[in-house]
């Protein structure tokens, strides 16, 4: 089946034929072993293509304590080779794909296509059902991903659908949740996230919030679900816009929400108002298990539907490099779109690229206070957690933001210690590692913006130091002469 993939199973089969996925036939334990394998895959080679030292996606075919056919999968989009395949990218330069593919989220946002509702009999996720008293989350190999996690995190590589009670907006987002017992989960719902804003409306009305969590659909849906698109915009339409084809969905059994029809598992239920259960901790994308165990909203499960021989996809987050390269591409594309809409054209990337730490923004036309303006625009429109960043670095457009060495060079040589380091108090998420416990609980901690742009009152020919590089400091005829004679030099 050609791009775009409706069915993750087809994507996995094609990846396996091309050497980008390995099926592990040996029995694997859901209790730490599967997570440890996924973690090691990330640390050995995530981000790179399999042929260039990268590691494959993995499908666990035999899970301890579960019947034949029940499976798990991880690192689905951990390599640039799988990402370009997923988006149907035809270019040969895989590094260039990281900047080129940022356009897809912008295209999807500006040209949404509404989802296509299927008849339930045509939806693979409806092949099996557990309703009411039959519900048992332990029928699936929800993994204990890291030792010491607060519970078995079944919801990591997934989206949870919730509907704004005041409009037609349906949010699909990636929000972690762990099992408490066979019919309940608890999950991290941060007030500033879209689900947090929607949930607050239900709590104000003292009404339960219907939810539907889908696991194991096509990876484009996962990547968009994990990207902060504007408040009030439904992810399903953006996904359709990216695919240039509607995403097939099906209505839930116990509520009116729609989920991807090719999902492996769909968990439906309600989040009651003002009820909390202990949740966390969890080893997160920051590379730490920073958020402490805390009372968090409760998901009460009313129904589960699933495909036969279900594949439970999970995400073993941790120390960079992580399975977030695809997320980096879409998040940075969204950040670039946000800045352009604010009249600030810029290129955006993130370092470490398959992780989260610092957002690097190369601005084309700096203006006074450009660093603060960029940071404020992004945090107000997208939110810090959604940006997956704790630091902002603003550079001039001559810096190669995809080259970590050049970025470090810019920090070391262009950030003035007094005027180039801007500290501000921001809304921080509970996952912020350097924040004190009190700061994390109150969700308010300092953040820093590094301004590495040359001062605007420095004359570009007199005061701004010329860069001593092959392209910048040699006349063009000398550059051409050297390049044309390179082989003759024997080099």
């Amino acid at each position, binding site marked *: 089946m050609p791009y775009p993939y409706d069915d993750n199973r087809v994507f996995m089969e094609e990846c396996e034929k091309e050497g980008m996925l390995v099926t592990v036939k040996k029995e694997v334990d859901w209790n730490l072993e599967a997570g440890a394998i996924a973690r090691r895959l990330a640390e050995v080679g995530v981000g790179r293509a399999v042929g260039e030292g990268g590691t494959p996606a993995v499908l666990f075919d035999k899970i301890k304590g579960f019947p034949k056919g029940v499976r798990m999968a991880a690192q689905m989009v951990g390599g640039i080779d799988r990402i370009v395949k997923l988006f149907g990218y035809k270019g040969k330069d895989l590094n260039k794909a990281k900047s080129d593919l940022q356009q897809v989220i912008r295209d999807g946002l500006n040209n949404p296509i509404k989802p296509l509702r299927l008849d339930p009999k045509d939806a693979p996720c409806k092949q099996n059902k557990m309703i009411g008293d039959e*519900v048992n989350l*332990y029928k699936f190999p929800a993994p204990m991903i890291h030792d010491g996690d*607060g519970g078995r995190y079944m919801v990591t590589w997934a989206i949870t659908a919730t509907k704004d009670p005041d409009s037609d907006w349906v949010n699909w987002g990636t929000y972690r949740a762990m099992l*408490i017992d066979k019919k309940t989960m608890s999950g991290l719902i941060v007030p500033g996230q879209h689900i947090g804003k929607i949930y607050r409306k239900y709590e104000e009305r003292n009404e339960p919030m219907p939810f539907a969590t889908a696991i194991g659909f096509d990876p484009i849906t996962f990547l968009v679900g994990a990207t902060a698109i504007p408040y009030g915009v439904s992810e399903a339409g953006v996904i359709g816009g990216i695919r240039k084809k509607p995403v097939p969905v099906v209505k839930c059994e116990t509520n009116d929400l729609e989920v991807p029809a090719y999902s492996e598992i769909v968990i439906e239920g309600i989040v009651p108002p003002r009820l909390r259960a202990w949740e966390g901790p969890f080893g997160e994308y920051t590379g730490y298990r920073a958020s402490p165990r805390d009372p968090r909203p409760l998901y009460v*499960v009313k129904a589960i539907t699933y495909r036969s021989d279900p594949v439970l996809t999970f995400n073993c987050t941790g120390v960079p490099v992580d399975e977030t390269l695809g997320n980096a591409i879409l998040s940075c594309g969204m950040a670039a779109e946000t800045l352009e809409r604010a009249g600030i054209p810029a290129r955006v990337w993130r370092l470490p690229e398959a992780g989260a730490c610092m957002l690097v923004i190369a601005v084309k036309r700096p203006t006074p206070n450009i660093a603060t303006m960029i940071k404020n625009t992004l945090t107000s429109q997208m939110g810090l957690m959604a940006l997956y960043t704790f630091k902002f670095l603003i550079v001039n457009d001559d810096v190669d933001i995809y080259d970590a060495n050049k970025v470090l060079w810019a920090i070391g040589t262009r950030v003035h210690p007094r005027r180039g380091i801007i500290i501000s108090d921001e809304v921080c998420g509970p996952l912020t590692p350097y924040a004190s416990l009190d700061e994390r609980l109150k969700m308010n901690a300092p953040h820093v913006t590094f301004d590495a742009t040359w001062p605007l009152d420095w004359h570009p020919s007199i005061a701004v130091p010329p860069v001593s590089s092959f392209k910048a400091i040699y006349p063009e005829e000398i550059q051409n002469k050297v390049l044309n004679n390179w082989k003759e030099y024997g080099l």
Partner: protein
Amino acid sequence: MAIYETFILEDPGEIPEGKECTLEIRDTETYETRVVKAVIDKSSKKLPGADLLRVRWQRGMLLPELWGIKIVEEIGSVGENLA
């Protein structure tokens, strides 16, 4: 002899020793969580016939000592009356 786990937020003294208290525990086979009334002691030898209790800090780190837990009453699962 079963092994259970529980979490403490800041201080091992949160769980009173030698007297009945209510706490949330999870078994170490399925990690299903339930609420129990139990008597806890930092030394499992002081509670004859007790099961073992592993205690974790709020960010998951394990205390090195194995405590003892004698379950007096099962109160139920967190979601028992909700679903």
